[in-house]
């Protein structure tokens, strides 16, 4: 399908506003130059490998160990974020307390704070001599320079997603539904689990998927705290970096393609979830 027919206007008449062709043309050109053509380089470079070379690069034991760590830690981190994100959204929408506006603003800190800063700061807190680490080390708990560190960094960077997807839906939730449930004899817990939670579920899942997607690709905050031991606490993005440093461009490209495919899958999933959410809230809006 050529772009001419693909991006043709759906209905010809009654276009009063100017600038359709120039803005769409610029958007497509910029998108192609910055995103699509460079990303296609990844595909074309990988196509130059033989199947065996590709398969060897993406299934080497060290690489597979990194997938397991990256996926596992991202999954746990997104789950923790789903739970606490839901709690934070609930508290911020439903209750009044001192410092609420500050907390609301602080939730976005992981978006605004550079990942490298987050990485060294979390490490400083959790290392054996750090503020928190010094109390945990005598107990035999180590939160830095191992897999725990990876998990904590991923929880930090994924924290805002669930809060920010659930919060607006919870704000718009009609009080009447809950009142009706209470009038019909439901306990508060029944009202929450049968009335409120189902209404929030699409937003919660969307936030979960966003936090998960972000965690899979995260690099800056993790590498400082992870210890980066091969087979143990080495994340997949770091594998790409170390292959690049050894001038193994083919290997780096192959692993990067696997990551790109994961990103595509997550993007499709998130889009689907958002469409579901819109169709849900569209009925009540």
């Amino acid at each position, binding site marked *: 399908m050529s772009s001419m027919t693909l991006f043709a206007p759906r209905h010809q008449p009654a276009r009063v*506003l100017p600038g359709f062709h120039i803005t769409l043309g610029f958007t497509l050109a910029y998108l192609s130059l910055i995103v699509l053509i460079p*990303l296609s380089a990844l595909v074309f470079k990988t196509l130059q490998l033989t199947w065996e070379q590709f398969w060897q690069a993406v299934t080497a034991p060290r690489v597979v160990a990194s997938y397991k760590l990256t996926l596992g830690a991202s999954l746990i981190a997104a789950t923790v974020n789903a739970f606490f994100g839901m709690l934070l959204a609930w508290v911020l*929408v439903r209750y009044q307390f001192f410092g609420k506006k500050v907390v609301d603003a602080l939730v976005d800190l992981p978006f605004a704070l550079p990942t490298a800063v987050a990485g*060294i700061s979390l490490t400083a807190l959790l290392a054996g001599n750090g503020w928190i680490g010094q109390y945990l080390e005598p107990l035999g708990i180590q939160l830095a320079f191992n897999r725990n560190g990876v998990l904590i960094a991923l929880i930090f960077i994924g924290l805002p997603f669930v809060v920010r997807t659930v919060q607006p839906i919870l704000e718009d939730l009609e009080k009447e539904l809950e009142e009706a449930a209470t009038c019909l004899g439901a306990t508060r817990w029944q009202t929450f689990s049968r009335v409120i939670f189902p209404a929030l579920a699409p937003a919660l899942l969307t936030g979960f998927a966003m936090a998960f997607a972000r965690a899979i690709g995260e690099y800056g905050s993790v590498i400082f705290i992870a210890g980066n031991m091969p087979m143990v606490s080495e994340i997949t993005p770091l594998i790409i970096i170390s292959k690049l440093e050894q001038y193994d461009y083919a290997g780096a490209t192959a692993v990067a393609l696997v990551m790109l495919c994961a990103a595509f899958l997550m993007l499709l999933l998130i889009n689907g979830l958002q469409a579901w959410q819109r169709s849900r809230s569209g009925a009540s809006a």
Partner: protein
Amino acid sequence: MNTQHSVPTHTAQSTGEPAWLRRTLIGVALLFVGLFLVLPLAAVFTEALRKGAEAFFEAFKEPDAMSAIKLTLLIAAITVPLNLVFGVSAAWAIAKFEFRGKALLTTLVDLPFSVSPVVAGLIYVLVFGAQGWFGPWLQAHDIKIIFAVPGMVLATVFVTFPFIARELIPLMQAQGNEEEQAAMVLGANGWQMFWRVTLPNIKWGLLYGVILCNARAMGEFGAVSVVSGHIRGQTNTMPLHVEILYNEYQSVAAFAVASLLALLALVTLVIKSVVEWQQQRLMAELAALSPERPIKTPLHAH
């Protein structure tokens, strides 16, 4: 009409939680925020000032630190305007017109959000690097893109690509086309319509997108790290400088530079909150208007 029902903060007693549960939930939430957000933020500044103000300022006297700050500002100064023009343009096409492939285009605009920063850096190495598509040609003409500033700008443009468009598209979709159409019918030309009607309507969303884009542009680490080559004094941004200092065990200096970035993050959050409150106030004022006067002119009457 009774508007009390739609105010979410007025929790009716019948549907509220008991006080002990409310306090516990608030307590757990605050503990989580304290541990995961406040402590890391506090640690940056404490570590930076651990050996006093003099050691703190020493970190910025180094020429490498100054050049890192300058490069960071330069990259943001190029990246933000580029993505600003793109964001407005993409939002105009997507929000104001119907065309086939719109959903696909919207998805593609979002794509850089889900690509790992490391992959974002790598793709530019594959295009412009020595082994890349244009590598030999660039080398023959003595143009450096990878391990130089242009590559770092490109990688930053990639990772901050969706920020402004993402803020504007839903906003402009919600506002609809009527006001612009009215301007055109009344004889405005395209630019007049944009400057006098569209821009005033989207200015807060635009500002919001710009500050988020700027924060990410200045703070980007992974993508820039891949294409920078880490040449001290030349291709080091502030986040990369932090990494180098940290790995050299110059903890105070690393945290001093990091504290500047943390300050930037705090300023970003403050502006962001102000913009949000501003938008909420506007929405509340609009909602308070009587239905006979839906036009926004009486806004200042309050």
